[in-house]
């Protein structure tokens, strides 16, 4: 059988790419082989457009145990404890079927973490939807949220935070990024690299069905004989089986029988077997007739490309099969030896005693195309927005409009659907700057935060790339954690367009600078390109998931104001950069101008100074200043504690709108005891940190002297209405 042009196209391959395949094989491919190449060479598995740029990111320092290249990154947090974490996208499936798409996204990222031997201890997510006015948004939002909850709750991993944003750029292309964090003994980490010849390759978990086999199958001739209608099917998640798989794997990992382990994620059995063999520089031979299948008459093509969930591939050491099988029997999971490692460096597949594919492993992995795609520099608007020329607006009205906007309103209607407490180590749930999770049975904890700023990245990709890394670092510091490392999920449009590729390259450039300067390496991540519908790409949306360490449980800080009469200090200089601010967007729908600049030196100094004050017990509560500026952040502190603030009238030198709503970076608000004021101020001065006392804590009134005053309960109500109104209309 000869592969036709249509089949090549239906498999998402270019004709030159197919030509290269025939050269690598030394012959024409058959259909099974074509399917395997298309899976391995697509953007998702091969990173063909992003690889050369991702290499620029810093990925090492003395706490990094495993950087990018494995199922998840691993960092050392002392005492033999290590943290395993990664973030991943499930954008397209979630747009098609929001509940199952989001649920299987959570399932996939959990497997990446427990594959490495870690027990997952927390889930986070970053979800982006179209504008609330868009008809589809309500259904997508509710579906995604219940899918995330439905999966995580059932498996019993707390979902402790994330972010939810709305912007018309996502109308036809929502983003669902899920992050999982696990804990492992650093001497018991498992990797995917195969070792040794003639070792058993074992399939465990759920059976293989026709889930998620790409539309490409439909275009292939082989199926015409089969009268049955075969629609591409959506993957359905089975959190119950995931929980069993998790427990069974961790039980098996207590001893040393596993040589290598890999979950079956995108491209299922294909990518898992190829990755294991490729990393170990070995071959692998599989007998597909042995693969447990859910449906009768599944073809080798379908078996290799199925994306059924909750499956793993293991390579076991000699004579360990029986003991291992017992464990999987106990958990009622399939356990079947389906092949062995070889020294041929080839992927050989047999089915019904016939060889159905025979491909050099290097052809699938190392020889996969890599593109240095054309990219264009982004045009950055230098326009200044003159606040004085805008229609007059009262400060309190502007504040209330921000607080009640979809993007800034309280998200407890989402987080009340997530079990945030299960496992009983959640010290701080969502709602703060970072979630804080205790390491079980230990006197230490980690902080986790997930952040993105697509508006900034759109306006200036490089500066936006820097900004999100910095914002993430700030969020970790705001709970008293020392920032350690990050994972990232890079959501962009079509990389074949120079403009989009330019956004990607510049964002990475910005992230790289910030990560290097802050010693904040990238240890894992994921790239999601082609977030486009009808040729319209989304705003560039890199998402950062960061981890920080809290060595002492009594040094954890939150943003709740603690007592009346204490003072609020702002750390970092306020200039009043208003372009790209929530103030302009929520009140005037103005999206023009450059984002605020990032000064990495100030960023680092300010952050380390705040951290030092926290460690010296001088800070009662803390919060970073981000979207919405200083006044929004102050209001958030008030609402969190239901305690009021008296904010001093700003000095004449600066416009009060710019002062209160400007989004200058590198700033924190801290609450301090009056008696410590002198001490703190001189400490900050010694370190050349700009600071200013701007408010004092008082009972339930939130006011700016001589300007306005409002009850904290009214702030709270305005912050808590949006969703209920939104969900009431159909």
């Amino acid at each position, binding site marked *: 059988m000869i592969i036709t042009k249509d089949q090549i196209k239906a498999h998402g391959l270019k004709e030159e790419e197919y030509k290269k395949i025939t050269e690598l094989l030394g012959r024409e491919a058959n259909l099974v082989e074509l399917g395997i190449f298309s899976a391995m060479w697509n953007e998702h598995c091969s990173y063909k457009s992003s690889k050369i740029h991702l290499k620029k990111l810093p990925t090492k320092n003395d706490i990094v145990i495993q950087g990018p290249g494995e199922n998840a990154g691993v960092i050392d947090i002392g005492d033999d404890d290590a943290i395993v974490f990664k973030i991943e996208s499930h954008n397209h499936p979630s747009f098609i079927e929001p509940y199952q798409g989001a649920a299987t996204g959570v399932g996939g990222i959990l497997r990446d973490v427990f594959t490495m031997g870690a027990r997952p201890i927390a889930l986070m997510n970053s979800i982006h939807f179209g504008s609330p006015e868009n008809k589809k948004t309500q259904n997508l939002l509710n579906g995604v949220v219940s899918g995330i909850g439905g999966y995580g709750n059932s498996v019993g991993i707390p979902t402790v935070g994330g972010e939810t944003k709305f912007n018309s750029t996502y109308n036809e292309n929502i983003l669902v990024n899920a992050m999982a964090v696990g804990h492992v003994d650093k001497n018991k980490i498992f990797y995917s690299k195969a070792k040794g010849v003639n070792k058993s390759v074992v399939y465990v978990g759920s059976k293989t*069905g*026709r*889930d998620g086999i790409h539309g490409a199958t439909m275009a292939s001739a082989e199926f015409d004989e089969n009268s049955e209608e075969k*629609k591409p*099917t959506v993957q359905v998640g*089975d959190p119950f089986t995931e929980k069993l798989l998790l427990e069974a794997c961790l039980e098996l990992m207590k001893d040393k029988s596993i040589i290598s382990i890999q979950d079956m994620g995108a491209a299922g059995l294909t990518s898992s077997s190829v990755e294991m063999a490729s990393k170990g520089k070995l071959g692998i031979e599989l007998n597909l007739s042995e693969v447990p299948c859910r449906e009768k008459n599944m073809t080798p093509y379908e078996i290799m490309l199925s994306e059924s*969930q909750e499956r793993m591939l293991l390579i076991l050491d000699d004579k360990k099969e029986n003991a291992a099988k017992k464990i999987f029997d106990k958990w*009622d999971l399939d356990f079947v030896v389906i092949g062995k490692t070889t020294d041929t460096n080839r992927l050989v597949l047999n089915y019904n005693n016939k060889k159905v594919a025979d491909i050099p492993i290097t052809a699938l992995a190392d020889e996969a195309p890599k593109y240095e795609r054309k990219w264009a520099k982004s045009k950055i608007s230098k326009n200044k927005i003159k606040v004085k020329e805008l229609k007059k607006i009262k400060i309190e009205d502007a504040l209330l409009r921000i607080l009640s906007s979809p993007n800034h309103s309280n998200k407890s209607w989402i987080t009340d659907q997530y079990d945030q407490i299960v496992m009983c180590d959640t010290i701080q749930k969502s709602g703060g700057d970072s979630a804080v999770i205790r390491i079980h049975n230990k006197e230490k904890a980690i902080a986790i935060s997930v952040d993105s700023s697509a508006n900034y990245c759109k306006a200036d990709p490089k500066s936006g790339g820097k900004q999100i890394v910095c914002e993430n670092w700030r969020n970790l510091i705001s709970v008293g954690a020392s920032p350690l490392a990050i994972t990232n999920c890079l959501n962009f449009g079509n990389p074949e367009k120079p403009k989009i590729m330019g956004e990607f390259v510049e964002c990475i450039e910005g992230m790289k600078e910030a990560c290097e300067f802050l010693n904040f390496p990238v240890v894992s991540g994921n790239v999601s390109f082609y977030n486009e519908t009808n040729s319209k790409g989304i705003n560039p949306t890199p998402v950062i998931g960061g981890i920080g360490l809290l060595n002492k449980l009594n040094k954890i800080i939150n943003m709740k104001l603690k007592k009346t009469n204490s003072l609020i200090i702002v750390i970092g200089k306020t200039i009043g950069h208003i372009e790209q601010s929530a103030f302009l967007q929520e009140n005037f729908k103005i999206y023009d101008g450059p984002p605020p600049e990032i000064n990495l030196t100030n960023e680092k100094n300010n952050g380390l100074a705040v951290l030092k004050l926290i460690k010296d017990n001088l800070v009662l509560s803390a919060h970073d200043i981000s979207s919405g500026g200083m006044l929004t952040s102050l209001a958030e502190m008030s609402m969190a504690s239901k305690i009021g603030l008296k904010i001093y009238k700003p000095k004449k030198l600066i416009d009060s709108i710019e002062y209160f709503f400007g989004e200058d970076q590198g700033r924190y608000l801290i609450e301090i005891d009056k008696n410590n004021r002198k001490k703190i101020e001189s400490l900050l001065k010694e370190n050349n940190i700009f600071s200013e006392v701007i408010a004092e804590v008082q009972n339930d009134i939130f006011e700016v002297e001589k300007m306005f005053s409002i009850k904290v309960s009214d702030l709270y109500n305005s912050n808590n209405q949006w969703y209920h109104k939104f969900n009431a209309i159909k």
Partner: protein
Amino acid sequence: MKFSVIVTLKKDVLDPQGKVVSQTLKNMGIKNLNLVRQGKFFEIDIDETDPIKAENQVRVMSEKLLSNQIIEDFKISRAK
């Protein structure tokens, strides 16, 4: 006028519930069980005397709310 709507997962879509139910039934001693698939059932009572109009309304409900057509099929029948 009364109708019933049965919503079932499309063939080839994983049915985690059916899987567990059928495993449990086997453990309970029903060895000759081949397959269980689980779906939803709705009883709908609507104030409409024209059977064609009524059924059309039920169809709209089934398409728009009761089923998720990406993974499910539905079947309407008029109840006696």
